[in-house]
């Protein structure tokens, strides 16, 4: 299962990012979320939503084997094993493995689906 985004419908509200940071860390902070909302304004005036496709490139790249799969088959970073080398961040073709000054280990989408419930535009779905 992975998150899918219909970018053309996105209005750029970032509710999804808040739901995400609340799920991952129990915090209100779009900069600690695992999906990216990229505005292209003023031209052409569209939003691009980048989400994890669960392709596994990060797990293949991780030198310490810190990236594992949870019970839904979604990848996650086992912070205990992570050395903070950021190889996965580089390897991710979607650029959706994120870092924050507060945290040593990067973080990524675990396909929880919390973002879907707060998106008023029905951009997001689990497939």
């Amino acid at each position, binding site marked *: 299962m992975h998150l899918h985004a219909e970018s053309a419908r996105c209005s750029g509200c970032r509710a999804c990012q*808040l739901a995400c940071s609340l799920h991952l860390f129990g915090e209100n902070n779009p900069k600690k979320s695992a999906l990216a909302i990229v505005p292209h304004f003023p031209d052409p005036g569209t939003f691009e939503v980048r989400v994890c496709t669960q392709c596994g490139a990060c797990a293949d790249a991780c030198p310490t084997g810190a990236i594992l799969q949870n019970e839904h088959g979604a990848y996650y970073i086992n912070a205990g094993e992570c050395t903070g080398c950021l190889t996965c961040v580089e390897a991710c073709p979607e650029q959706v493995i994120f870092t924050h000054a507060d945290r040593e280990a990067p973080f990524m989408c675990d396909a929880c689906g919390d973002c879907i419930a707060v998106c008023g535009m029905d951009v997001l779905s689990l497939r």
Partner: protein
Amino acid sequence: MYGYGGSILRVNLTSGEIRREPLPQDLARDYLGARGFGAYLLYREVPPGAAPRGPENRLYISAGPLSGLLVAGAGKCDITTKSPLTGGYAGASVGGLLSAELKYAGIDVIAIEGRAPRPTYLYIDDDRVELRDATAYWGKGSLTTEKALKEALGESFQIATIGPAGESGVAYACISHDFGRQAGRGGVGAVMGAKNLKAVAVRGTRSIPVAQLERYRELARAMYAACKAAPGLEAWQKYGTAGVTTWANEIGAFPTRNFRSGFFEDHSNLSGETMRSTIVVTDKACFGCPSPCGKYSFVRKYGVRVEGPEYETTALIGGNCALSDIEDVAYANHVCDELGLDTISAGNAVAFAIECYEHGIISKADTGGLELRFGDVDVVCALLRQIAAREGLGAVLGLGVRHAAATFGRGSEAFAMQVKGMEMSGYESRHAPSMLLSYMTCDVGAHHNRSWAITYDITRGRDAVTPDKAAKVIELQHIRPLFDCLGACRLQWVELGLDLGHYAPIVEAITGLPRTWDDLLTISERVWNLTRLYWFREVPGFGRAWDAPPPRTYLEPVETGPTAGKRISREDAERLLDMYYEQRGWDHDGRPTPAKLAQLGLAAL
């Protein structure tokens, strides 16, 4: 402090001094946030009689306790100052992502005073705060400046900027943000310009702490679920405020040709349906909004992009200047946005000038050879450019229609559509007494946002001039501005019918301060009375006469459309005021009584 950024950022542009103060707990308790903070700080800190464009005036950019939280529409930011347009209180609201970003940078209020020695912008990256040279941006349009600053600093910075109109001191210059959102009313952009402050750029990376995390998450989920289940959601997402255009014409409330009429014969060309099917490309939301009213458009005829036009722009630039092509309206909207002009006041100023020209009150000698007429987009845009540059006729029009009427004279005062010096927004109200009373008593001037009571006139009877109409206006004047204190949008309630019962519990869960809905309304009433006191303090002779409607509303009947022949009598307008003052606990001159002030904890003021 739970739910708040936790600090006031003080910036003195004259000395260059920057410091952070902790947000006082009692300020949060008694004034809640955003509009409440601005009104209180303006009253306490700006010296009485300060010149709006002088260094002693201050500009307060404030977030509320809901801003940046998981609450539907939690992206509103308040900008408060002493208005160069009216000389009284100005509190303007802007959506987008600004207030959320301020909170993530740990800031509830930016309090800006003084005047920078050269064009400057304020740079905020969490704790790193600097005043930077903005010479390279001075003279540039708002959209151009925002784009350039994002390119220079990074997409993650949120930008608030002025355009040429703010620099030149147009009394209704706005502050622009997010490529199409404006703190539109009251000339907040002119105050920024007078301070030599071109822009504010902010990025925050911190988390906002919440008192009751699980309760908050549950309430937030319920709020989004309710919005998504609302029957009105689909139409609102499709048309946004432009959906109002057809209805406003059907009820004869669409300002047309300087409010001579409430019906525009070509309105279907400007409708939400026309707009959606011809120019809209993207739905665009404020922070956390599931029901975006923002419609981002590509205007093929002119090759420009613009957010909008939203209803107010369609009303004042469209109907009021009699433009009958949505692409022309959208283009004039783009021109206003780049120049940094409030479309409501600007549309009024242009229509007023055209009517003066029609009556022979001004001539080609005044307009720089321009022949003014309704329905001509080139005339509209030429005047908008003159206004922003304060050149030609723009030197007079740029100070608002009250000033222009005083300058031109010869009876033009009767059709200068303003209250307290602020031009009227998009509802022709001669046959809607509670809407007219809303305009008369709004605390910034003739604006609809504090009370939008026209639907009440329709359900209750449009001729009725009865105490319940005053009661309705007061009720709305407490509920609607409460959203401006919370830092959230009211439209999920107004347009989707989101139950007001959602708000007090989530405010409580976020801030940890016990609050009922009635507690919140009391704060809103406190703020309302405080802004009234500010008017009395700042404007010599202020009182009842400042609440009078524009003379056109009682002197002339509506010319055409469903309300043709209707007007309100001066006596009825005065009766409405009597009922309103009495129910508010104000005296005959509209001054809050000592008993009312004591009840609201304002006795010391």
